[in-house]
């Protein structure tokens, strides 16, 4: 038997994805297209929020959508029905999108003519938090029925997002969801995060969200 020797490797396992993500960000900077990664558990309201956002902003901003629904095409069809450029990625059974998959989505969109592209990531609070998609902003949705303890169970997701949308606030009166406990937990993980309470059914808070988005797109377009 040969003797066992040690070889230094010293490499980041996810370095390839980090590199592709940086390329995506740079490429979209050139066309002044802001990329926004929307994440949540299954059913928290990602598609509903995208539809609300389109309804409010489609006269002011040119939007595109990248959909990562696991099997069906339902989500992309709903979006396309609003006259918005949408592309459906085939993610198979994947638990998250990586920057290479997002690149394929971008290539299928008329990027030069878009102010913002929203990615509907795979419904999952774990894996999407670990894979940089190349987005300029990360946004997550937590819906009231999921409970106020989620920051304790999925700390990474809460710590990487720029905005937390607390959706389905129309359910608040029916539940023991403690909004101030939630805010405290989230801010402890991520002091810089913006928290906005919304309901995609009543429309409550949606304007606060779209105002945030418009402002961020303006800032993005002015930055070099």
């Amino acid at each position: 038997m040969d003797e066992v020797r040690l070889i230094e490797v010293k490499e980041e396992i996810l370095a390839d994805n980090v590199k592709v993500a940086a390329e995506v960000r740079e490429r979209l900077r050139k066309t002044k297209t802001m990329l926004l990664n929307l994440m949540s558990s299954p059913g928290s309201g990602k598609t509903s929020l995208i539809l609300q956002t389109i309804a409010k902003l489609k006269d002011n901003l040119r939007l595109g959508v990248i959909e990562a629904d696991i099997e069906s095409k339902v989500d992309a069809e709903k979006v396309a029905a609003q006259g918005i450029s949408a592309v459906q990625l085939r993610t198979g059974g994947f638990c998250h999108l990586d920057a290479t998959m997002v690149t394929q989505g971008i290539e299928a969109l008329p990027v030069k003519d878009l102010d913002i592209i929203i990615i509907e990531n795979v419904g999952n609070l774990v894996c999407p938090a670990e894979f940089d998609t190349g987005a300029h902003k990360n946004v997550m949705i937590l819906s009231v029925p999921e409970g106020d303890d989620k920051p304790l169970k999925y700390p990474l997701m809460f710590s990487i997002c720029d905005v937390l949308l607390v959706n389905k606030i129309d359910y608040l009166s029916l539940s023991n969801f403690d909004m101030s406990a939630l805010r405290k937990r989230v801010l402890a993980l991520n002091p810089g995060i913006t928290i906005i309470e919304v309901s995609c059914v009543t429309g409550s808070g949606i304007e606060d969200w779209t105002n945030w988005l418009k402002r961020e797109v303006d800032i993005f377009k002015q930055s070099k």
Partner: protein
Amino acid sequence: MHELPVTESILKIVIKHAEKNNVRQVVAINLQIGKLSDLEDEWIQRYFDYLSKGTLAEGARLKIERMPIMMQCSNCSTSYETEASNLGELVCPACGGKNIALVSGREYYIKDMEVQ
């Protein structure tokens, strides 16, 4: 939950280094993975055993060192270790401040490998 793509990356990097160093056989791979990463050691090994069949790394053991979650207070700069389950309810043990940032605990790193 995403052990598969992570394992694919590990294998790719390991094979690259094995070929560069004229290795006959990779015996073990030493990884550093942050405690915040939700990877199951057992599953990474199983995927690895499957993916590495017929390669220089077939049969290699993955030795995983779990890296601690380190936080730093933005107020007084004190660093300290914590567990994932405490992250939502942190106060700085030195000054009681609540502005605390994550310093490490998200690593996905290949340190070195044992080869023949």
